[in-house]
């Protein structure tokens, strides 16, 4: 019997895969995925698996006595910016400190799991390879099931290795298992989110973007909750839930159970959608559109509006939701840290000289500004995407000049993030004002505070435009690297005590904290002028260069 015949034989005769059932062929796809990822999969599992145990060994060596660890917890591990970045430490034992240090593991494993699932589902489908396989003996649900099976197995293996490594460094078994499983379940949850996103969108890029947006919101919500010590806010986030097991103090298992239920719900939704839709299609059926263009679609600006409106709407709605959550939690955050003088001082340094609650809001607005800058960069880099997809050419072969085309896109890259910040400030002020009974006072105050970040965001957009004009081939990577550098400088610069000239490189360093203080005009005008100069230079370079390049 040939190998192909054998494959056909067991695909149809095995009860596990059913007689032509939706899961037929899953086994073969699992093997295909394992074959394709045979290098990548073991590497990421092993590299991540050794981290918690190595942290534990380091802490045991650096802080051997309970007194030293208690001091470390009081000075460093309990520091609000560390708690915001990593999550809370549930005690001063070696295990508790090491698992806090490994707090980003949930985010990282979630990210990788999500990307792996999209890579083996929507990417395959978009590339047409899924069609090739779909013509063989293959159940409808098999591709999704195979991608999830492999990712779940990798997450489980990773969790077991993490727990085993922690036990091997002489830590108690219960805490080790709780932490290991929390990593596993964070991975499984976001793998399933990836599976859902892959059903909703037609392109792999959009699926990744959707999944990453969910992951980013989950991280931001946990960060906002942990920074202000608002427990319910942290619990709203799957990442926050995964970090609520209190390993090595008094282990709680219910957050893991909640994650299992959430994963099952998202998974049921994803498989339900997968069973219903056509190959290659997203969930929304292809509807027919207008046969003629409306009056607004008459030039480069109208075209840019059509290309940007969905993203703009999504970002604005997201900003409003974030503002409502932050504004509603601010008062609780303020009272949670009230008695703590050191925390209050730190909050003030981060957020300006206002009440602790407003300082908290100021700090979260700074992070929102970075997200808005990411949106602005994405909108500016859309020009590069249009160029490489050869959609810029037919437009520029009409009576549209390069300047008009660029300015149409630039309008959205500048005004989109502005709208996001204004809405965030407005809704934050509204929610916070409602919670303390001062809407009329807080709305303009917080809207103004959000607006103060706009010029710095524009500078990053200007950097992206200049790169697009001058160095189009590296523009995407360098523009995102610039944003990442600003994020690192802003969040870690003060903690790491970097020198001032380095911090000055980030436009956000020059953004004044205007909450509860006067508005200094000079830095805002200087940032705006810088953004204008960068954009103008980008435009000049774009007008002079070859296209496509």
């Amino acid at each position, binding site marked *: 019997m040939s190998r192909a015949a054998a494959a056909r034989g067991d695909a149809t005769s095995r009860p596990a895969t059913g007689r032509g059932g939706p899961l037929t062929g899953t086994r073969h796809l699992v093997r295909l995925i394992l074959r394709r990822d045979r290098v990548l999969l073991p590497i990421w599992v092993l590299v991540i698996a050794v981290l918690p145990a190595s942290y534990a060994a380091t802490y045991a060596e650096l802080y051997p006595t309970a007194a030293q660890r208690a001091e470390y917890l009081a000075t460093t591990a309990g520091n609000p910016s560390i708690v915001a970045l990593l999550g809370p430490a549930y005690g001063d034992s070696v295990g508790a400190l090491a698992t806090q240090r490994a707090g980003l593991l949930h985010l990282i494993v979630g990210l990788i799991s999500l990307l792996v699932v999209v890579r083996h589902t929507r990417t395959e489908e978009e590339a047409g390879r899924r069609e090739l396989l779909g013509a063989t003996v293959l159940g409808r649900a098999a591709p999704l099931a195979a991608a999830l099976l492999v990712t779940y197995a990798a997450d489980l293996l990773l969790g077991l290795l993490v727990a085993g490594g922690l036990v091997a460094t002489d830590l108690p078994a219960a805490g080790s298992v709780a932490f290991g499983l929390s990593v596993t379940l964070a991975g499984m949850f976001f793998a399933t989110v990836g599976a859902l996103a892959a059903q909703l969108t037609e392109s792999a890029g959009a699926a990744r973007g959707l999944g990453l947006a969910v992951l980013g919101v989950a991280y931001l919500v946990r960060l906002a909750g942990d920074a202000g010590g608002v427990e319910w806010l942290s619990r709203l986030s799957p990442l926050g839930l995964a970090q609520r097991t209190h390993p090595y103090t008094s282990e709680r298992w219910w957050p893991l159970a909640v994650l299992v239920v959430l994963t099952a719900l998202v998974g049921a939704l994803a498989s339900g959608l997968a069973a219903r839709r056509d190959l290659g299609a997203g969930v929304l059926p292809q509807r*027919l559109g207008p046969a003629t263009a409306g009056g607004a679609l008459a030039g480069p600006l109208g075209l840019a509006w059509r290309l940007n409106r969905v993203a703009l709407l999504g970002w604005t709605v997201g900003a409003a939701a974030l503002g409502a959550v932050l504004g509603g939690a601010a008062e609780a955050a303020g009272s949670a840290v009230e008695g703590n003088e050191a925390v209050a001082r730190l909050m003030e340094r981060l957020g300006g000289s206002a009440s602790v609650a407003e300082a908290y809001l100021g700090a979260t607005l700074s992070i929102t500004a970075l997200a808005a800058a990411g949106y602005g960069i994405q909108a500016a880099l859309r020009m590069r995407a249009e160029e490489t997809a050869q959609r810029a050419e037919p437009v520029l072969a009409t009576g549209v000049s390069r300047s008009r085309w660029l300015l149409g896109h630039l309008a959205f890259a500048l005004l989109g993030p502005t709208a996001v910040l204004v809405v965030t400030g407005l809704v934050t002020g509204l929610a916070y004002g409602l919670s303390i009974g001062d809407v009329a006072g807080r709305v303009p105050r917080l809207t103004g505070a959000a607006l103060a970040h706009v010029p710095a965001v524009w500078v990053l957009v200007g950097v992206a435009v200049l790169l697009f004009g001058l160095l189009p081939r590296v523009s995407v990577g360098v523009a995102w690297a610039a944003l990442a550098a600003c994020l690192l400088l802003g969040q870690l610069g003060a903690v790491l005590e970097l020198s001032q000239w380095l911090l000055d490189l980030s436009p956000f360093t020059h953004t004044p904290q205007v909450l509860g203080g006067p508005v200094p005009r000079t830095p805002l005008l200087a940032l705006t002028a810088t953004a204008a100069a960068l954009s103008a230079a980008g435009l000049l370079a774009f007008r002079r260069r070859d296209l496509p390049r």
Partner: protein
Amino acid sequence: METPIEISGLVKTFGRTRALDGLDLTVRAGEVHGFLGPNGAGKSTAIRVLLGLLRADAGAVRLLGGDPWRDAVALHRRLAYVPGDVTLWPNLTGGEVIDLLGRMRGGLDRARRDELLAAFELDPRKKGRAYSKGNRQKVGLVAALASDAELLILDEPTSGLDPLMEEVFQHWVRRARADGRTVLLSSHILGEVEALCDRVTIIRSGRAAEAGTLSELRHLQRTSVDAELAGPPHGLAGLPGVHDLRVDGDRVRFDVDTPALDAALRRLTEIGVRSLVSRPPTLEELFLRHYGTAAPDAAPAGATR
């Protein structure tokens, strides 16, 4: 009337690659001009220079009496362009793209737009991501042909079209010519060029290898002769301009240079002809003579250039 396209000595380099190496191309007003060449010969690069998307490194380029780089916007109002691979915005319908491009070009003929949609059997209500390759090309073609542009620049416009649609395309190109418009048609579908083009430029490695009407080009080439004679074919092998002579009893087959055709036929009739098939060179043969591995050197010296 000015000459719509005049290119001489055009050079364009990308790093170390010399994509255009002294290209000459002249397209006269009112003609359909075939722009032939294999992949990578520089056809699309030349067209992008004409569109002001790429800047020429050397040489002179005149488009509709202007400078394609400096006067790009003004010139673009007078031309329509169809790329070889039309990519559409996934969330815009075909009809929206046609109208958008038309408006940015300065308007299109609504009646002709509807007529074209019907002729090409294109549903303008579908979203860009839902069109097949051939249908995306149709969107580009309808947008260009519905415009009132005096110059059409078509870069391998029919890739992905089925033979029926190819016929429709040819009909509309002829109509455009009848309306007095000028067409630059880059293609490697030789049948299409043979059917449509008044004059042809063959490009190879970034320079023009041949230019002229099809009959001029044919004149420089050989005619194939297949004849059954009344007697043994003596004296044919010695004639100048006769190539690849194969004798099979009283039957002969050979290729003959066009200037030597008369002498060869005279010799055949002297022997006595029972049947005769003669065939002018096809464009394929012209083309292969320039690009084929064996063909170029087989051409008689001085006959092709």
